[in-house]
């Protein structure tokens, strides 16, 4: 019998409804039952192994003691994963000697064999799991290094990131640096990833390995690394007080031209020079105080304040008549918070301009400009009054 298009559509939709409905029911029951089973399994597993592991940590003396614990573990995928999960959680809690013993467990040949296979597989998931494991275990040989370097160009961002992380365990600082270079070029690298990698790069250099010179500068000089990545490197240097980069950063700032696309880079650089208290950069920073962009002017104020000294503070006071409210506000906050003579400079400012205001009728400025100017002064004096009062009452918000 020939069924018209109408009935075909209706039938199709009904079939779709029925299949969806059945699939939903089956899926729900099946996955929830599975989940219940696995969580019960997990509870039993942990109840059994946690005391074993904790006992081991208390009593173990040699690396071979780890074998006794591992013997009790089956080679099943799920068991290995659950076991490593427990070890993972314990690494967050214990360190020192206890941690050393934990590492014997983590680095055990059983896991190494298990994950080595995954490292060389073609499945993205397997590669990812392997990389996650090796970041923790810290074991790295030449053959693995080659494989990991190739994984940095993987299409999957997470695999690339995870292998870059593992490579930060390499004793060769150039391998670590080149890993960063390759990874930072990727358009899909996020700032969290970059931050984490920078941290591992530096942390490992600090702890065990020698670092010759200021290697991170190569990342800044590399032409094909996008500017926002370079910004993160600079922020990192500033946040962790890597003073050895001070002069390099100043020279670097001199080479950056003021253009719209360089704005954020300049802001980072000026902030860094402030954080690192690079006094030699004072003149350079002051030259940015008249630039058109308000954000740059604000960070000049911040940086000059951090460099300190009466000259810099006077210079900041001189910027007080800035056209932008936000800049004026920052200057007022800075001077009010200053523990030494900030308030004196503000007083001097107010006296100077009050004298001016009292001579208003002899001024040559056209009335409109005068009004703008008077309003600005009013705003500044209000700001000084309120900010000072709030400081006395400890009402100031947490400084950025």
């Amino acid at each position, binding site marked *: 019998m020939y069924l018209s298009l*109408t009935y075909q559509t*209706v039938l199709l939709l009904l079939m779709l*409804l029925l299949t969806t409905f059945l699939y*939903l029911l089956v*899926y729900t029951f099946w996955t929830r039952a599975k989940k219940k089973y696995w969580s019960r399994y997990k509870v039993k597993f942990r109840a059994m192994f946690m005391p074993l592991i904790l006992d081991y940590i208390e009593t173990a003396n040699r690396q071979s003691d780890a074998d006794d614990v591992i013997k009790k573990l089956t080679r099943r995928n799920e068991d290995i994963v659950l076991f490593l999960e427990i070890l993972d959680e314990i690494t967050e809690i214990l360190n020192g000697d206890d941690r050393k013993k934990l590492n014997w467990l983590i680095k055990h040949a059983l896991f190494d064999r298990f994950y080595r296979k995954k490292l060389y597989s073609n499945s993205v998931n397997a590669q990812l799991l392997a990389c996650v494991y090796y970041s923790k275990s810290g074991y790295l040989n030449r053959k693995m290094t080659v494989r990991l370097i190739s994984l940095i160009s993987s299409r999957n961002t*997470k695999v690339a990131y995870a292998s870059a992380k593992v490579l930060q365990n390499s004793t060769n600082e150039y391998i670590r640096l080149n890993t960063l270079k390759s990874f930072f070029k990727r358009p899909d690298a996020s700032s969290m990833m970059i*931050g*984490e990698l920078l*941290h591992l790069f530096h942390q490992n250099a600090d702890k065990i390995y020698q670092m010759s010179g200021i290697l991170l500068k190569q990342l800044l000089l590399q032409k094909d690394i996008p500017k*926002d990545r370079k910004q993160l490197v600079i922020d990192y240097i500033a946040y962790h007080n890597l003073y050895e980069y001070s002069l390099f950063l100043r020279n670097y700032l001199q080479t950056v031209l003021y253009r719209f696309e360089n704005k954020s880079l300049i802001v980072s650089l000026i902030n860094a020079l402030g954080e690192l208290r690079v006094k030699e950069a004072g003149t350079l920073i002051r030259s940015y105080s008249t630039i058109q962009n308000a954000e740059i002017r604000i960070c000049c104020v911040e940086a000059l304040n951090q460099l300190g000294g009466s000259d810099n503070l006077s210079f900041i006071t001189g910027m007080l008549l800035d056209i932008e409210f936000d800049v004026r506000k920052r200057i007022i906050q800075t001077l009010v918070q200053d523990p030494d003579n900030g308030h004196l400079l503000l007083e001097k400012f107010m006296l100077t301009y009050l004298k001016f205001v009292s001579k208003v009728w002899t001024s040559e400025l056209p009335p409109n400009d005068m009004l703008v100017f008077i309003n600005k002064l009013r705003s500044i004096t209000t700001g000084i009054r309120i900010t000072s009062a709030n400081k006395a009452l400890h009402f100031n918000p947490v400084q950025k």
Partner: protein
Amino acid sequence: MIQAIEWGIITYFLSLNSVYLLLVISSLIYIRQQMLLSDVVKPSSLFKSKVYKTISILVPAYNEAGNIIESVESLLRLEYPEYEIIVINDGSSDETIERLKDHFKLTKTELFYKQSIDHQPVRGIYKTAEIPNLTVIDKENGGKSDALNAGINVSDYDLVCSIDADSILEQDVLKKLIQTFVRHKDTIAAGGIVRVINGCKIVNREIKEIHVPDGFLGRLQSVEYLRAFLFGRVGWDYLKSLLIISGAFGIFDRKAILEVGGYSVDSVGEDIELIIRLHSHFLRSKKEYNIRFLPEPICWTEVPVDYKSLKNQRNRWHRGLADSLWRHKYMLFNPTYGRIGLLVMPFFLIFELIGPIIILLSYLYLGVLFFIPGYTSISFIVLFFAVSVIYGMVVSLISVLAEEIAYKTYSSTKDILILTAYSFIENMGYRQIHSFWQVLGIIDFIKGNKSWGNMRREGFKVNSTK
């Protein structure tokens, strides 16, 4: 002629439900992608610095004396390195401001800020040295937008977040949301998943169990939230075409809001209107920007459980949509506004805004058919039933399935079974009545109705001792 109408109706329903289906399925794919070993990129607590932007949470409050203290206390417990809370008392007629002053021991003070956006006069600003990140603004009544604008002026931080006084936030919501800003450069606005809290079991301020609400309307809305507000939005976000962020929780770049002039005070749907205005401004000035949706639950809200409140809420939402689209009608089919102007807004216009009218007319047409003697086109009636009701059920069911696959939020199988049943029920009456409310909304909009109406709230404290 009859043929044309009938084919028109069928095509309409077919395309409407197909688009929803597409949205749900693409969201599911997108979410699965995100979730695969998402903890590979764990934000290490060691590298904090400028990756985190500072956030101001704005809490506009009108006659919230009942739960304002509880709200603010829970906001103070959020986990985030640097944020502040600004409560704006919008000229309440009850003791909202007195309770705040009393409980937190606030004293009147002044703050130095620029009045970038105009709003009703501020009567006073209150702070306390003990809780430096809490500020309370007391001002004359001006409406939610007006209150938010006051908050935006006073805020000194990078991002502002607007929430309803009765939204309950997860403790790590700010940490989660900031990922959106970090992952996508130039993000100027972001929203997240809002879930229904009616029916959840709260013990000692912890959400212990998540269940569907007990009542009929509550359960219907749960399915609706999954379909339209969860997967619908994620789907749009995937297509980089997000037009709506829930008013219950939205986070914005402060400078961007100042650029467009803040919230509009005379609009009923101020949250939608702001987003559209942001799109409009940034597309016109050809600046890079992103408005994103975080496919993770961040906020819990109470849904109305009585007929009248629900009707008023939906009426208001629809008026808001109408108002926002009308104000920015210049964007429709205008290539300057890219995807938003050419695809998204027309979609919302035809399917979301005018859609209910078409739906209602279709049902009327169907009704009329029964009174025409000699009408024997059974095929049309059956087809109509299939593409509107059956297809609708498919989409609702798939949304429930997607929720099970992606999140498994609900604590017990019984909840899923209830949602499944309600997926059917939703399409056999609720969506039709909903369309009716929306049509009333359009009529009210044309008449110029601007009120908010009242929602009878049970208060989430009622649930907490279950």
